[in-house]
């Protein structure tokens, strides 16, 4: 019983667009948090929160990229 791979997306949904927008927002916000807090003092709080924003945004962008690639393959007839 292995992990079932999610089927390729059938279309670009509102959920996908919302997640891409959120991810695009999170990466620069993360950078902003780190740069501005480090300019004041190097604290674990600033680094952790900033890194969490960047990691979250990056992960969501990677996920969105994978889904868009699958969608493109599906529409191009190269879906495997």
């Amino acid at each position, binding site marked *: *019983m292995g*992990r*079932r791979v*999610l*089927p390729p997306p059938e279309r670009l*949904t*509102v*959920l996908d667009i*919302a*997640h891409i*927008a*959120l991810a695009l*927002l*999170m990466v620069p*916000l993360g950078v*902003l*948090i780190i740069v*501005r*807090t480090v*300019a*004041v*003092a190097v*604290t*674990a*709080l*600033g680094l*952790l*929160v900033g890194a*969490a*924003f960047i990691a*979250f945004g990056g*992960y*969501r962008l990677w996920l969105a990229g994978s889904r868009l690639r699958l969608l493109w393959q599906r529409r191009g007839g190269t879906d495997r």
Partner: protein
Amino acid sequence: MSAGLAEGATSTKVGLRREVTIWGSYTWGYADVGADIYVALGLVIGAAQGGAPLAFALAGLVYILIGLAFTELASSYPVAGGGQYYSLRGLGDFFGFLSGAALLLDYTIDIALFATASTGYANFFLPYLGLDIGRFAVSFGPIQNLNLLWVGETVAMIALLIWLNVRGIRESSRVNEIIGLVDLLMEMSIVAFGFVLAWKPELLVRQFLTEFPSPERFLYGFSLAIISFVGLESISQAAQETRRPATVIPRTSLALIFTVFILAVGFSTVGLGISPWQDFAARESDPVAFLAANIPYLGILAGPFAAFLGATILFISANTGVMGDSRLVFSMSHFRLVSPWFGYVDPQHRTPRNAILAFGGVAIALTVVAFLTGKLVLDTLANLYAFGATFGYILVYISLIRLRFQDPYTPRPYKVPLNIRWRRKDGAVVEIPLLGTLGLLGVASIFVTVLITHDIARIAGPAWLLAGLIYYAIFRRRNRLPVLGSIEHDWEKEQVEVLTNAEEYDLLEQYKQALIRRDRARGAHSRWEEEV
């Protein structure tokens, strides 16, 4: 919130329509979890002071582990009942009831807490009408600062919710989706514009370094922060109404977990970089509106809009509590954990009237009692909310681990990562969850913290469970059912029916094949061979 409980039936054996889509599942969960920050922000900042973002982040890490467990269980067992069903299945009737009792406490507190918070946000507009909420506070005898207007509004709101639910009137899935989306955009905008236009990192850092609370206050804040993440299980509650649950639930659940985590951490970080923590502590009833109102240029509109949206989404969340209570107790009566009286369906409106009236009434009583504590009303309700949630989560985690051993045959479309594979004598491969065990330790640590630091939850929480257990023992004895043992359930047949109803035919095939392999390894004839 979509399909009704009693879809065209008056008996207790009723089906639920599968009409919740990916976006519907996500917004259903978001309308529930996304509302939490409207309540938690002020309470947690008031308790954890300069360390609030850290408290949110630590509680959030534990919540991510809880969320992963719910994702696995809800996609593997897509039935209504959520945590109560998993405990019943993994640990038997007694613990199934105990878990159900904890969740009932949570849903009932959900009604009281979110109705109180919703009217709190609505009161943001009182100054525009020339009214001051403080003028309605009265003190007599040992009761101090009882706000008559606020308690009156809240009781009226709960009464309205009871009436709406008994009559079977509820907002459509579409309304839920629109409000969920608008709220998501609003919360993201507050965080983004707050960081860009108003955030002062020196204020955040100064508060973190010089106004970090005592360890006891920090732990109190940390354990309160868990309430900003409660509600993810509404996705599993809706699992029986979700189309293609094995595919949809992991996607929506994981997306929701990370969205809520990042917003909770984001709100507290941006908040403490805009205003001192004392300002938030003073605005416990509407902290998000206060934060939005402090964003330059946009605040004049963002403040009232956030207050309006907060009042709306918290109202929906309170309604989720009424629906959650009725669904859960309906499921419990189906498994004979509580009296069939709770599962009675009103023939005219096709709603579980008795369950709604009973738990709606309890919610009103809890609200009035909480208001008697004066200014600690939200704190009192949040205490109990944290107790019920963490206790229920512990049982869910134990069930997750137990079911990995007891039922390795059910296909799991999503698994909590980091597992050790072990092949048993019957050929079944059991995956021992390492991260799951870590999650159990995490949620147990929050539960212990709740017991240590929450004066009210330490007494009222166990009292609720004890009262429930006494009721359970009497009910089971009267009906000649085992109190500590379990009624015999044919879980395999039930799982086949669940997967068939969900139209998850490939998973159904995998499940039957696994059962056949197990039976062959035992040298027995498999009842599933004829069906494959």
